[in-house]
């Protein structure tokens, strides 16, 4: 099972799509590792630098509604995985992206807008950090000398996939 949590990359916009996460021109790469330099290359957001320190250090992404919309490319979770980002927290996800995350043993966690508004208040904290306890279904946002615990729900199936290390291992054992 993967580990979850650490420094946070805040992406304060809804509908961040898979072309922004990993442009299609890189879909000719055969290995996941080759995707690494191209993370979020086409995402245009005020103050965001795909090559900046915040992107490089991040272990968790926090965003808004409909994260990962667009293409079915699993290259989107993979480019996060090879950059050591194993969890995305958002108000909602596009279906295929969400399932791809869990299928890879990664976490796509939904929180209500009110909780995300509180979390986004830490966007300028240099020490913003989120720890995630998947078993207890809680996450702790800390930064700027403050800390707050949030609870979340994930489906028992998705949780089982994370515990199993992904869908291939799970399905191969069961079907």
């Amino acid at each position, binding site marked *: 099972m993967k580990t979850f949590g650490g420094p946070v990359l805040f992406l304060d916009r809804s*509908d961040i*799509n898979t*072309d*922004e996460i990993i*442009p*299609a*021109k890189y*879909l*000719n*790469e*055969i290995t*996941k590792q080759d995707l690494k330099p191209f993370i979020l290359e*086409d995402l*245009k957001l005020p103050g965001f630098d795909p090559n900046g320190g915040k992107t490089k250090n991040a272990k968790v992404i926090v965003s808004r*509604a*409909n994260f990962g*919309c*667009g*293409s*079915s*490319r*699993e290259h989107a*979770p993979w480019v996060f995985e090879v950059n050591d980002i194993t969890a995305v927290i958002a108000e*909602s*996800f*596009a*279906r*295929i992206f969400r*399932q*791809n995350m869990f*299928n*890879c043993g990664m976490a796509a966690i939904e929180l209500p807008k009110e909780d995300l508004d509180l979390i986004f208040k830490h966007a300028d904290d240099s020490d913003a950090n989120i720890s995630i306890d998947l078993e207890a279904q809680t996450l702790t946002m800390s930064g700027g000398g403050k800390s707050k615990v949030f609870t979340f729900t994930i*489906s*028992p*199936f998705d949780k*089982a996939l994370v515990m199993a290390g*992904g*869908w*291939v291992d799970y*399905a*191969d054992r*069961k*079907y």
Partner: protein
Amino acid sequence: MGKTTAEKIFASHLVDEPFPGTKVLKLDVVMCHEITTPIAIDDLMARGKDRIFDTSKIKAVIDHVTPSKDTKTATQAKILRDWAHRHAIKDFFDIGANGVCHAIFPEKGFIRPGYTVIMGDSHTCTHGAFGAFAAGIGTTDLEVGILKGVCAFREPKTIRINVTGTLPKGVYAKDVILHIIGKLTVNGATDRVMEFRGTVIDAMSMESRMTLCNMAIEAGGTSGICMPDMTTVDYLWPFISSEYPSKDAACADFKKWCSDDDAIYDSTLNIDVTTLEPTVTFGYKPDQVKPVSEIAGTPVDQIYIGSCTNGRLEDLRIAAAILKGRKLAPGVRGILSPATPDIYQAANKEGLIDIFMEAGFCVTNPTCGACLGMSNGVLADGEVCASTTNRNFMGRMGKGGMVHLMSPATSAATAIEGKIADPRKYL
């Protein structure tokens, strides 16, 4: 209590319900292309599980970048090709016989009402036009589909979209679906099936129904679905004539998959198309739509006609009728990519290819290429494309490029004027 088409398909294909809310379904068709499949193949090989649950249910095509443009894309094609040969996959389409997946697979009669279909491609929802449940999935789901013939889903609720009225001249399925996405927004149908109903859909060809269902994902939808009827039977008849004594018998059999009259829907959207205008996107999201009258005059650099949305014969006929005897505006590039070799040949025999070429279009082989900015018509920074494709994300057709989605008719009118134009004046 009645069931929707999606509920009937889920009930008839259920293999397991490992947890409440998760349903593992048996798959009828697993489609593969050379972008998302090679990594699944490599992973299966690395696991020592280079197996296929049933080769007759695998349909594979090299379509996204074909002919290959460089070593990397050639390697992807080779991995898929070698795998297809190694496993003696009969339904594999390579150069000379290959076309855009969501156009060629229906054309070969692979999709039937009541089927479950997956592919590592978000526009797999297209195949719901046949009354199937067809969903785009990622590479891991594809890998399990290839190995085990199953896929897990949250059972989607269904949005019923009633399309009624009279489709005005110059307004087509593409305009209808852009209008619907504008109403639902880009995530209005997430975890939902979009069921297209009503007299306008009943009167539509299979090609138009595929255009509608193709863009269900742009509203977040899991699958588009149309009710199978005699139009479905007519389209499939060359492939099913030995299975049924008559078309009526086939139609009666197909109808068992139609939603029951007392089925329960998550919500209903009523659209009267009588006053609908040709519709065009203006921003970087497919729900940002305007009537053509509000955006006409916007200059473009390139026209692209093709793709799994609008690269079929019906689309080429519509565009050619407008382009006949006319020329591309000076300084504007036109690219036509018929979606399959059969469409290309038929268009050639009908004289449509001549019309496009005399207008100044470059006619390319069938491929996805330009639609996702991989090959065959990529935009430069700052360029604008009028396109019959399905996605207008920033940089989709090339970094820094902008895409306006529209119908083949509106694209053809735009080609003539060099700026977004109303097709109705040319009809």
